[in-house]
């Protein structure tokens, strides 16, 4: 995804050089973060394609799918593909993303390095296809890893009619994103939706059980399953960079120009890159980096200052938004918690600015809070608290006589009350004869007039 964004940026910026895109998947880049939506069934798989092969051709870009890169030769300035082809470069951009972490569960990986047939990763469209193919015959599934992706996959499987359980090693689901009370509320919501969550538990061994498998936890439980999905996070894919002798820590180290300090001709962006000690796993920062690097290569003098991240859970009936790092960020915490209603909102505020937030179960103000977070709006003293509470509801009141009811004709409640009937009202004031929107109010006001013949 980051690579597509980068190439779009080069096209928009009128980049003069020749561009080659190498990707090891058999299809052009697609919107990876919507894979769980495909699994859930809300998105058609072909709706994920970001740019069709025709688009690349139209812009003179050499797109090579299904092409794995074996090594980068910095001395000769080329990369070697698995089939031995050499592709020369003046500049190289690594957007290799991340690779799923395989938790240390005995029996998950077979001797030949492949996954057990009942075990699935969930990173690529191919993974998604394979999992979807297994769903019709599956009754029970276990998702290992209760982060954003794990919860999304669990909900998707559940909506597909598979009884699904989640195993999470931390104290609660989304433990990197939300505080304990919010995590507990989420677990309760998941349970209500039919998904049990096992927290503080690690899967240690996969047993063959005839038709199905049994996943043994370190708590002693054995969970029967037809499917096991591993969503235990990922790590930056750095093998090529390491092989080329570039500086790599957790990710491929880049400076504020997104260039490797080892070799300024080589850049990295997205999940595989480490900028100012930070690696991220989200799209918005990857896209910001992509746009910035494209602009730089097209001649603009811009530097990368880091990104603000907003993570949203994409799962039906579970509402979660995470802005920044609401667990780790320093600041004053404003919280509203309503476990009974399944809602928990937390704002971390520093000098009047929302620096992080977690919203669980109540997204009524997510749009506004995100705007304030992204723009660094300085809020008033009461404002963070007021943001988490609904607008005051106007109590029904008796309209004062001077209140204007019919804006089209400029007629007040008192003038309406002075009329005996709608016909009289229309004739004497023209109320209701413009846009017609006040007719019900006028009827109510007329009806409220005590009428003598009604008195006995």
């Amino acid at each position, binding site marked *: 995804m980051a690579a597509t964004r980068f190439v779009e940026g080069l096209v928009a910026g009128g980049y003069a050089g020749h561009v080659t895109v190498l990707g090891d998947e058999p299809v052009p880049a697609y919107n990876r973060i919507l894979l769980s939506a495909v699994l859930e069934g809300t998105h058609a798989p072909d709706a994920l394609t970001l740019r069709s092969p025709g688009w690349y051709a139209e812009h003179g870009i050499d797109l090579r799918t299904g092409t794995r890169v074996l090594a980068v030769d910095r001395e000769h300035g080329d990369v070697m593909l698995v089939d031995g082809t050499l592709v020369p470069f003046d500049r190289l951009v690594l957007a290799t993303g991340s690779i799923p972490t395989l938790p240390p569960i005995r029996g998950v990986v077979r001797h030949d390095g492949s996954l057990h047939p009942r075990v699935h990763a969930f990173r690529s469209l191919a993974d998604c296809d394979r999992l979807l193919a297994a769903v019709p015959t599956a009754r029970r599934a276990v998702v290992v890893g209760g982060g954003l992706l794990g919860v999304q996959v669990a909900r998707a499987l559940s909506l597909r009619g598979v009884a699904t359980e989640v195993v999470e090693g931390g104290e609660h689901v989304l433990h990197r994103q939300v505080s304990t009370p919010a995590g507990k509320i989420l677990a309760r919501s998941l349970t209500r939706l039919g998904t049990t969550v096992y927290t503080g538990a690690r899967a240690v061994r996969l047993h063959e059980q005839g038709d199905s498998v049994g996943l043994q936890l370190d708590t002693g439980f054995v969970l029967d399953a037809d499917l096991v999905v591993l969503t235990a996070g990922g790590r930056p894919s750095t093998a090529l960079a390491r092989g080329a002798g570039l500086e790599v820590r957790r990710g491929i180290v880049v400076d504020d120009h997104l260039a490797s300090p080892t070799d300024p001709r080589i850049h990295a962006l997205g999940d595989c890159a480490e900028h100012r000690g930070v690696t991220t796993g989200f799209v918005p920062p990857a896209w910001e980096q992509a746009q910035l690097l494209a602009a730089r290569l097209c001649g603009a003098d811009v530097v990368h200052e880091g990104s603000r991240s907003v993570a949203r859970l994409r799962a039906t009936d579970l509402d979660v938004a995470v802005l920044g790092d609401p667990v780790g960020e320093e600041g004053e915490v404003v919280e509203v918690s309503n476990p009974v209603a399944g809602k928990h909102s937390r704002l971390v505020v520093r000098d009047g600015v929302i620096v992080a937030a977690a919203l669980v179960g109540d997204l009524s103000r997510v*749009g506004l809070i*995100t705007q304030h977070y992204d723009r660094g709006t300085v809020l008033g003293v009461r404002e963070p608290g007021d943001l988490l509470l609904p607008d005051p509801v106007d109590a029904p009141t008796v309209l004062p006589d001077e209140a204007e009811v019919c804006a089209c*004709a*400029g007629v007040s409640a008192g003038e309406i009350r002075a009329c005996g009937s709608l016909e009289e009202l229309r004739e004497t004031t023209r109320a209701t004869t413009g846009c017609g*929107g006040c007719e019900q109010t006028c009827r109510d006001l007329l009806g409220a007039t005590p009428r003598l013949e009604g008195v006995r």
Partner: protein
Amino acid sequence: MSHGTALPLSPVSPGAGEGTRTHCPYCSLQCGMTLVGRRTTTVQPWAEFPVNEGALCRKGWSATGLLGHRERLTTPLVRDRATGEWSSATWDEALDLVASRIREVQAEHGPDGVAVFGGGGLTNEKAYQLGKFARVALGTSQIDYNGRWCMSSAASASTRAFGVDRGLPFPLADVEHADVVVLVGSNLAETMPPAARHLDRVRENGGQVVVIDPRRTATADRADVVLQPVPGTDLALALGVLHLLVAGGHVDDTYIAERTTGWEAVRDAVAAWWPERVERVTGVAAPELRALADLLASRERVMVLTARGAEQHAQGSDTVLAWIDVALALGMPGKEYAGYGCLTGQGNGQGGREHGQKADQLPGYRMIDDPAARAHVAAVWGVEPDSLPGKGRSAYELLDALGTPAGPRAMLVHGSNIVVSAPRATHVQERLESLDLLVVCDLVMSETAALADVVLPVTQWAEETGTMTNLEGRVILRQQARPVPDGVRSDLDVVAGLAQRLGSPIEFATDPEEVFAELGRASAGGKADYAGITYDRIRDEQGVFWPCPAPDHPGTPRLFADTFATPDGRARFHAVEHRGPAEVVDGDYPVHLTTGRVLAQYQSGAQTRRIGDLPDDGAFAEMHPLLANRLGVADGMPVTVATRRGEMRLPARVTTTIRPDTVFVPFHWLGVNRLVNDALDPASRMPEFKVCAARVVAA
């Protein structure tokens, strides 16, 4: 508060033959009304006219308030630049003076030294005659009009998508039969109240109404679904809808294959606009977006209507294109009771843009750089095609150039109060003041007329006859109901008088019906073809929809049923990207400022502010209690709204109906347009009236 109802009232429609059938002097709805009495004129309903069915808003009911008004100008006025004093002049003196000054300016600076600035409230006849006057009598390319600030983004988008720009490609009453009507940036319940009756019938008929607006307006109050995006993000919202339509398999593949081109690029581009990304950009929660897409996908007949809220942006034409993409993806344009339309704003916003008042166009919606168009129009005018100038500057660019070394040194203004209605108005006022000659034709001493060297008093609405083209493309007839006041002349007389004094090679007719017949010939064969329309037909048929190429042609109430007006007959999808507002909020200017209208006033207020029966409380700053509390102000307290271009002081109006990060100020009074941004849309040259960055503090 009550504003009384001193209006003369009569509940019954006058009988046939009694009174004069005409239309309201204000907005593009051009409500039918009957004027009774030649000396004391009253407004009566005209129940049979289908657009408003006898309904009027208070602006219409009180419209006669400007007839015989004490501020009415009835003599030409000439200002002494040294003393600033006005003195009255005879028409001959005034026209002689203007003509001689024009000659001087053109002798020194060439034909383009003189500019003409028109208005979207002028009749078709005046708009046509102004364009001809500029090109033939003045020989200048420098003509444009304030309609550029109205619906030009929709005009540009419609032309690119459908090959023709007619606000609504169907009669307004068609909306009643739609299953879903999506209003993007329209507050029609306040800006054209009788139109809201049609909207209510959508719901009575089981349909649903969607309103997209940063404010929960009076129109939103009568809708089923209301989305309140951040100002300037309607485009991203449309991309989000498209994304979900693709994702859910809800696009009409057959329609796309048979009637459109360009879909693939749009489909690919919207893959990157998933709901949560749209939420971050627009501030509209992802579930609300999903609900909207589900609604659109589940109904047979969807109608998308845009107005100024979507259009008055530096990405206004792309925003309209994105919403047209939505309509096309659903297979709606050309389908009965469905499709896309623009709700035009000014009274003759439609006709005003069709007959040569625009810098790049000739009558009949012909492009001025098309040799065939030039040949046709030149033949009708009796001049050589090569004598016609080329493309001039768009409205704002024209004003921005006034008095500069390369720009015009003199300007004639007809039907426009530029000082109030232009963006970055302080700068525009400076440009006007730098001119060697400013001539303004108006009814009253407007803020713009007050800067002029010569003010010419012209007829208004009920004192003259002429056609208008309403938001539906229906050509209607405003008929004279009152004698012309002594000392007042029509703009047609002004043009003819100046043309003759300037030695024009051709004469300019002053009889509106004669001008209209000529307009018909000039428009013949063009997109907006009026050739078959006559005053009599308009009277008999309650208006005639263009194109109407021949006397026996019935007119065209509905476009696109079989084909689009593009060379290959297919509609065009356009892959557009969200760029966002030209000026983003920041630490110094942290609030979005948006502008708009209120029910009781019209445009720059030159007319409505002078009508005693209309409440005039002045401008206000509408804001949410969250923002008001942050600023420490309560309802009614004064605040200062400042932008990089200027500031104004006005009372706060605190309400929960507006987004808490946005402040709204109506533009009918001198003020807020001094604050707004003059960034222009690259295609339509529309300024960004609807969003800029502001700071609000307690005053």
